């Protein structure tokens, strides 16, 4: 509605602006590179040096991304399944929540950096540890959101179900679970931003795998010890893309589940 009333010039401008900002930032990047004294220049690679690192390190980066991506997907997937089950369990009664929430908090508050060495001793470095670390990072916010969703069902709807003598099972799976979808997807979105970060951090501290195939975190250790700044920047960029893919995937899922009925996807023309 408001877009239509705007002048065409403004609309073109608002489409061009993000692109122009990007170009401006790359130019600024070059300017900073030029400004550095020759003995500092290695600290900041130019954009084209980063691009070259992409091609030089292509296969290595690709395999590392697969490794990290696998850990992120596995950790995230387990977090989705278990947080849903845990949310269902916690939604059963305030008593259940009171007895278990504090211990979930402990799990969340314990720094990963401390858990990692324990994990390495238990399951060894590599994919298993990375998956578990990713899981631990994603799990808590997803449990909190799912539980909140399951206990926030409109009271009138619960009355309606009781009026028609719905069983407890029907009340949970035909009412509470579908009603919790918006909360569930909020948790999923938080988890999706955390999962790739969790996998890279996990790989950084516990990814030193015996078979020699490390993920993106492991690569950063190697590149930084060799002062390969271009390759480090390229690795960061790949991690960023991985994060975008995760978030985009979850956004697509939540659109599929919610766009028909939920106000967060309401069209302005209705």
């Amino acid at each position, binding site marked *: 509605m408001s877009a239509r009333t705007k002048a065409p010039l403004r609309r073109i401008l608002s489409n061009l602006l993000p692109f122009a900002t990007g170009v401006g930032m790359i130019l600024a990047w070059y300017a900073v590179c030029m400004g550095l004294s020759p003995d500092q220049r290695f600290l900041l690679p130019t954009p084209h040096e980063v691009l070259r690192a992409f091609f030089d390190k292509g296969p290595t980066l690709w395999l590392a991304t697969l490794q990290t991506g696998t850990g992120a997907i596995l950790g995230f997937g387990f977090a989705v399944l278990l947080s849903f089950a845990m949310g269902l369990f916690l939604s059963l009664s305030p008593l259940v929540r009171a007895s278990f929430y504090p211990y979930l908090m402990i799990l969340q508050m314990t720094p990963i950096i401390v858990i990692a060495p324990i994990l390495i001793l238990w399951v060894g470095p590599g994919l298993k540890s990375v998956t578990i670390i990713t899981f631990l990072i994603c799990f808590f916010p997803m449990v909190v959101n799912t539980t909140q969703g399951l206990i926030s069902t409109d009271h009138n709807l619960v009355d309606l179900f009781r009026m028609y003598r719905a069983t407890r099972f029907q009340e949970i799976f*035909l009412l509470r679970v579908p009603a919790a979808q918006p909360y569930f997807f909020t948790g999923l979105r938080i988890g999706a931003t955390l999962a790739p970060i969790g996998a890279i951090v996990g790989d950084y501290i516990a990814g030193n795998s015996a078979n020699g195939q490390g993920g993106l975190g492991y690569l950063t250790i190697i590149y930084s010890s060799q002062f390969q700044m271009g390759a480090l920047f390229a690795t960061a960029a790949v991690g960023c893309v991985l994060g975008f893919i995760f978030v985009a995937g979850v956004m697509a899922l939540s659109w599929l589940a919610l766009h*028909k009925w939920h106000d967060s996807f309401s069209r302005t023309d209705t």
Partner: protein
Amino acid sequence: MTRDEQSPVVELRDVGKRYGDGPLILDRVSFTAARGDFVAIIGPSGCGKSTILKLICGLNPVTSGSIMVDGLEPSKALEKLAFVFQEPTLLPWLDVVRNVEVPLRLHHSDASGRAEVVRRALSLVRLADRGDFYPRQLSGGQKMRVSIARALSVSPSILLLDEPFGALDEMTRDHLNEELLAIRQEFAWTAFFVTHSVAEAVFLSNRILVLAANPGRVHDEIQVGLPYPRTAETRQSQDYQRLVAQVSGILRSVENLKA
């Protein structure tokens, strides 16, 4: 369903209700409704109007006294009852057809019969062409119609309506009242209708129970002799307007009682 036409369908005997240790909500409420009665319940806020409906449908137990629905305890007579809430209480993630189906699905009625029942219920409320709409695409009046269709889908013999049109504008409310009576011509359920509007109570019902508050009790009952079918013209008649004035007077005196 072959019971004597004259025997009471719903009978309240000295019903008292309090929640936990709270104050007495209802005090010795007694009345009976015969098959086909349309009973309107009015009274000042806090007089327990809605509570009575919740007791009749067995959602809450009585504290003292007894309620019989078709000779049974409310919790055993459920398949005879349907409830229309103050709010449309639709499930926003289901389209109109599947919303109307909800009670049938909860009772595991067989899927092949469902479609026909739903189609019929929706055409009664004139929403047959909105089956695949989602609640947020409907107006307030349309949502309420879906809610009524959902109640009708279980073919109730007793319909409990808790201020169903309170949130709607007056035009829509009048239309829905006329539609409700038109549908009733066909099915002749016994109805209990809680409302704040005297005009609505007179238009719909053949009996009006006026309750007093603190604690809720039956203050008066008015017989509405206007013949059915009633239409928009009924509101122009002198009898109707006289009744509205009379009931308004009684309601005012009840509200003064409270103070």
